[in-house]
């Protein structure tokens, strides 16, 4: 752990009293917002599945999970946080440590982060910095180390800034993933990370433990895909509920999540048999893509979509806080240590469709993934959600628009910030877009 007396490179001095005040205010308001969001989701779907109760509880970031992690730490388990989905969670699990994603979804902390970096920086980054400055995030606070994958500019520097507080392990990621030397390089990074984790936790990652961890995550992927498939048909679950379930994987206990999500899928299947749709089947089906939307405050836009007049339903998303989390399984050929590590490396590098990659043939797999998703889930419109400062998604917009124009699917560029002030403006746009989708569907 970093010595607190060592001079901080980035973070200014803040009086402890101010930190406490800010933390208690923002935490109180955040708890209210989380409860409010859950109420709103309940209202939209009066016959919400019973299995969602568990996810409502676990979605309270300051509640059960925080206590559980504290208890695990007492027992001596290490908690390893990460910011980007490239961190190899299977390795962490195999070393008997707990992986948890620490990106912040609190709007209010982004203003605190403004003291360290300018407002032009991606708000997710500013919010995470702010959350650390006042010690708001239970996961960030309890992490013993953080894996910082150098994907976009923001993430690269975030690791550096957070090194004022925590042990940071950087993972270099090659930005052209098609080249064979890229995969070799990334495989080296994975091996390096394995050694790092082993040393830190004091536990050796054996073939048995890694096999168990990979099998667990394959099981989770299966349940996840089951949920995905269920959403492809007529509306069976509101998008926000599914997004919450998906995102809960990032901080929940993986085995328990698999169990509870599986129970949810069972319930949804029964619902499908009864043809008990959650909203009329002709509700406009929307796909959201862009900057990740973290619980709780970033539910702003999904709330608008699903409570608008006319109502829409989010049937799929291409977000790294949503359907990218568990979309790909680790494909192991022969269960030797080397093959498992190779499989892990490949799954995290090759299967990812983050826009931070590029290639001479134009990063096609990302566009193809989106097009495929649009077709399979019968999506009628795409909302391209970008927070101001997210260069990668903002720059890719024209390309994605052209691709969607070719298949005649409308897309709307929704450009917003980590603020509640623009809800009115967002509402106008979202409602106009949904209106457009309804009119098109009527034709």
């Amino acid at each position, binding site marked *: 752990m970093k010595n607190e007396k060592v001079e901080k490179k980035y973070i200014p001095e803040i009086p402890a009293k101010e930190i406490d005040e800010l933390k208690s205010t923002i935490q109180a308001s955040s708890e209210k917002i989380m409860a409010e969001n859950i109420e709103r989701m309940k209202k939209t779907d009066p016959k919400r599945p019973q299995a969602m109760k568990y996810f409502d509880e676990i979605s309270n970031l300051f509640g059960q999970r925080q206590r559980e992690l504290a208890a695990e730490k007492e027992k001596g388990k290490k908690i390893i946080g990460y910011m980007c989905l490239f961190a190899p969670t299977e390795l962490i699990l195999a070393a008997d440590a707990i992986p948890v994603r620490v990106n912040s979804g609190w709007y209010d902390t982004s203003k605190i982060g403004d003291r360290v970096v300018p407002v032009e920086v991606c708000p997710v980054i500013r919010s995470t910095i702010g959350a650390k400055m006042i010690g708001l995030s239970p996961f960030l606070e309890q992490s013993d180390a953080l894996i910082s994958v150098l994907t976009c500019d923001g993430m690269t520097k975030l690791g550096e800034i957070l090194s004022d507080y925590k042990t940071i392990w950087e993972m270099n990621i090659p930005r052209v993933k098609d080249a064979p030397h890229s995969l070799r390089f990334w495989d080296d990074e994975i091996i390096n990370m394995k050694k790092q984790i082993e040393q830190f936790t004091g536990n050796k990652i054996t073939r048995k433990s890694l096999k168990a961890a990979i099998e667990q995550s394959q099981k989770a992927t299966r349940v996840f895909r089951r949920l995905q498939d269920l959403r492809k048909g007529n509306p069976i679950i509101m998008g926000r509920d599914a997004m919450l379930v998906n995102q809960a994987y990032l901080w929940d206990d993986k085995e328990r999540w698999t169990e509870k999500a599986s129970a949810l899928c069972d319930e949804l299947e029964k619902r499908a048999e009864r043809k008990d749709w959650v909203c009329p089947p002709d509700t406009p089906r929307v796909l959201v893509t862009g900057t990740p939307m973290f619980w709780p405050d970033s539910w702003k836009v999904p709330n608008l979509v699903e409570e608008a007049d006319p109502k829409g339903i989010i049937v799929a998303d291409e977000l790294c806080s949503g359907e990218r989390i568990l979309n*790909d399984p680790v494909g192991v*050929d022969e269960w*030797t240590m080397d093959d498992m590590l190779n499989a892990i490396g*490949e799954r995290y590098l090759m*299967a990812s469709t983050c826009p931070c990659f590029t290639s001479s043939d134009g990063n096609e797999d990302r566009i*193809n993934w989106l097009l495929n998703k649009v077709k399979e889930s019968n999506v009628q419109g795409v909302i391209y959600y970008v927070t101001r400062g997210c260069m990668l998604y903002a720059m890719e917009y024209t390309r994605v628009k052209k691709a969607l124009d070719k298949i005649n699917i409308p897309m709307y560029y929704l450009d917003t910030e980590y603020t509640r002030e623009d809800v009115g403006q967002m509402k106008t746009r979202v409602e106009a877009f949904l209106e457009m989708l309804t009119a098109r569907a009527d034709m």
Partner: protein
Amino acid sequence: MAWEYIGDILRLTVLGGLGAAGILTVLLWKKNLATKITFLRLVVQAVAFTALFYVFSLKLPLLYFFIFIFAITLFLGRFYCGWLCPFGFVMDIEVMLRKALGIRYRILPERFNGILHKLRYVIVAVFLALPIALWFLQPPQNLNFADAMAKLLAGPFRPYTALIDPLIPVVVPWTSNAVNVAHINFTYPYVQDIIFWAGQNIGEAIALVFIGLTLASSFVFRRFWCRFCPTGVSLAVVNRFKGFKWAPLLHIEKDEEKCTKCGVCKRVCPAQVTEVYEQKGGKINTSMCMLCLRCAEMCPYAETLKVNIGNKTVFKSRNWLEPPKVE
């Protein structure tokens, strides 16, 4: 006389029974869907191995096999390489042994692999040229064409030896040119030709080194022999001609839009075929793919990789959604 027939019938029944039992086992009891086809393939290879042994004991002219290979290649691609070739079976047994010992496979560097592919053509060219060269070196006699052809085909280096030698199963029913160990006749592709060409003693020494190298390489590099096996070259040659672009009918079809370029197909391929990964959709054109279908088995997206005969799909990659079916 009657005993021979009964022996034949017995062998056939045992063969059929083993085959059926094996296939049933695979299809009903194998829980792990990711290796179902692989196990099915092993069973088929075992059956083919035994069947070929039996067929060879009928002492049919080897020319028939040459024609058979050529025809089957046109329609089924290198299907026989992956599912019927006895030498392939030997290599797959080695793989099973290696996995049991927990040893990891290695991959050849891409460039070296490419060189091996080219070596195929060299071997075929040499074998095709040698008999013609030999024929010219001998003093010309007044032979008509039929006699000349007969002499060519009866000579020590029959031109098609190169193309079908690997087909000779390691355990053979005949005793000539085979090594008898405990009443079982062992032979090995090309050993016969090496010994003929280099003389008995040196030939045997070279042959032993050859056997050792190829067996050892196949232990570490999966399907090592297949990369330069000239038996498979007929497809590569035929495919170049415009009229034969439809060949083979049995091929792998890729849906470019569904492919996420995750690279699993490239990694698990025993022959290190990269065309499935690199080609942009449609019919995969490759002269190395042995249709072992490992790529389609491991592909994590439904209907991305399909195995088609013409336009009809016989197998396709599945969504990892399906939990293992527990009976």
